[in-house]
């Protein structure tokens, strides 16, 4: 059973999600090949693969959704692996669906585990992490978009033969997308990665006006307010306050989550906090799966009590 991992990198480093995918591949036991679309000089970092297939081309210097998807699809078609692993990330989303469609392979998204027992099967998390789903892949071959946290990145950094093989660039004629520039985030706001106590609000805070209550609690604690993605998308707090896959990864001493359900995208950015306390009215909210302490109840009743107590 052959595994092919489609790697992703930015500014000279592979993402942790890439190493996690390699770790999932190693866990499956078969030979693990990795495709690197980019500079061959980076291949040495992929010690978790038995073979690193390098496609080096000036057109692939920076990630271009259309170009990288085309290269990966061509390699999948040529190598015919049973299992194709793609990180479920910003880049992976542009890649996975196109590989699935071009190669006629089924795709499993939000995937947390892949198994090869009697047949090929997988587990994934739908509905913002609230439901776990087992699926069979009857054809015996598939593309799996792996959620962060599916394996330890450390297990994917070594253990393979790491043989580097250069392969010809698949046809990239007629690209309609041009990479222009990378933009680093603007600074200037509170650095939530450096704060010891974070009061984190999610959808449960209900309105922009209610954020003032969380601000008052954070002030009483000498901490800062952070939030999950929907709060930023609504324009209630700036991007600099967002915790999660598309935001920042934080490791404060205290992480007080108020009305945060705990979607996989959010958990990815906070699971390493020292003490996680979660408050949610839904006893089944996934946030309780990573929290150290939890209380099921109304955050609007709790906040004033707590603000007075810690003030």
């Amino acid at each position, binding site marked *: 059973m052959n595994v092919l991992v489609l790697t992703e990198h*930015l500014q000279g480093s592979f993402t942790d999600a890439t190493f996690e995918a390699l770790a999932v591949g190693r866990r499956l036991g078969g030979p693990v090949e990795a495709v690197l679309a980019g500079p061959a000089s980076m291949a040495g970092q992929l010690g978790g693969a038995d073979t690193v297939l390098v496609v080096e081309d000036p057109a692939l210097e920076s990630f271009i959704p259309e170009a990288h998807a085309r290269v990966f699809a061509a390699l999948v078609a040529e190598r015919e692996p049973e299992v194709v692993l793609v990180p479920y990330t910003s880049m992976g*989303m542009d890649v996975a*669906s196109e590989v699935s469609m071009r190669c006629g*392979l089924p795709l499993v998204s939000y995937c947390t585990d892949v198994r090869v027992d009697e047949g090929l099967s997988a587990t994934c998390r739908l*509905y913002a992490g609230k439901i776990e*789903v087992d699926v069979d892949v009857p054809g015996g071959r598939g593309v799996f978009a792996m959620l962060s946290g599916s394996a330890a990145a450390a297990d994917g950094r070594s253990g393979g033969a790491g043989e580097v093989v250069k392969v010809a660039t698949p046809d990239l004629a007629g690209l309609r997308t041009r990479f222009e520039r990378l933009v680093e985030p603007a600074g200037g706001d509170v650095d939530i990665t450096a704060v010891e106590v974070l009061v984190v609000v999610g959808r449960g805070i209900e309105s922009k006006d209610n954020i003032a209550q969380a601000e008052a609690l954070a002030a009483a604690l000498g901490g800062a307010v952070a939030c999950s993605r929907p709060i930023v998308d609504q324009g209630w707090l700036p991007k600099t306050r967002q915790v999660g896959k598309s935001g920042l990864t934080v490791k404060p001493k205290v992480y007080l989550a108020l009305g945060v359900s705990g979607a996989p995208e959010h958990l990815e950015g906070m699971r390493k906090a020292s003490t996680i306390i979660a408050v949610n009215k839904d006893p089944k909210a996934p946030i309780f799966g990573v929290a*150290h302490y939890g209380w099921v109840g109304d955050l609007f009743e709790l906040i004033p009590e707590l603000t007075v107590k810690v003030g």
Partner: protein
Amino acid sequence: MNIAVLLRVVPDPVEELELSSGGTDLDRDFLGFVVNEFDEHALEEALLLKEEAGGSVTAFALGTADEVTQMLHTALAKGAASAIKLGDGLDPLDAHAQAELFAEAVKGGSFDAVLCGVQASDELDGQVAMLLAARLGLPHVSVVVGVRPADGGLRVTKEYWAGITAEFRVDLPVVLGVQAARQPPRYVAVAKIREAQQSGALQEIDVTAPMSASGLRVTAMRIPETAEGAEMITGDEIAAADRIAELIREAR
């Protein structure tokens, strides 16, 4: 610019979900649906783009539920020129089939851009937006957080992680998976939605749902054990505030 927007409803993310008796689907009898929040952002970005570059927005949606009709009337009220409901009997967990139906629907429309939410919480087998792009052989960018007209094409901002973004210049036509519009989705007065309802502008097209296209078979669903790790605090908010204050003191 001729823009198509694909809209979907998903189970309300704040509701508690129950499983069906067979254990391979949600119990859909009493399920509340809301507009997929990413699709709402796609609509907003499409309207902003139209206001900037001229042209029109056409909204498409799959399904026959009341929420779907309501969603399309709202899109009309917000500024879409037309709204088209594609009736279906689709497996709700088949993004490949959804992409197939949407692809058929937008094919004849000579759209310059197709905008759709980057993801939905029920996309078991891939992102509809990106599957559609692949099916139509169009360039695509997902996790889009901004779109601007640029000399005959579009300049698209894609978000990576930790706030890093990349800018691309893409030719038309293009498919975009929108994460967040440049500004929060606009509100629209109920009176305007009612006006849209009465205008009769909503079109319906019957489509034939393709056979299961995902190539997957759901064998089981379960609600993950979540509280196994957490020590649960009992009592009312006063007791909870006491205990949480104590925990914070100990932890820092």
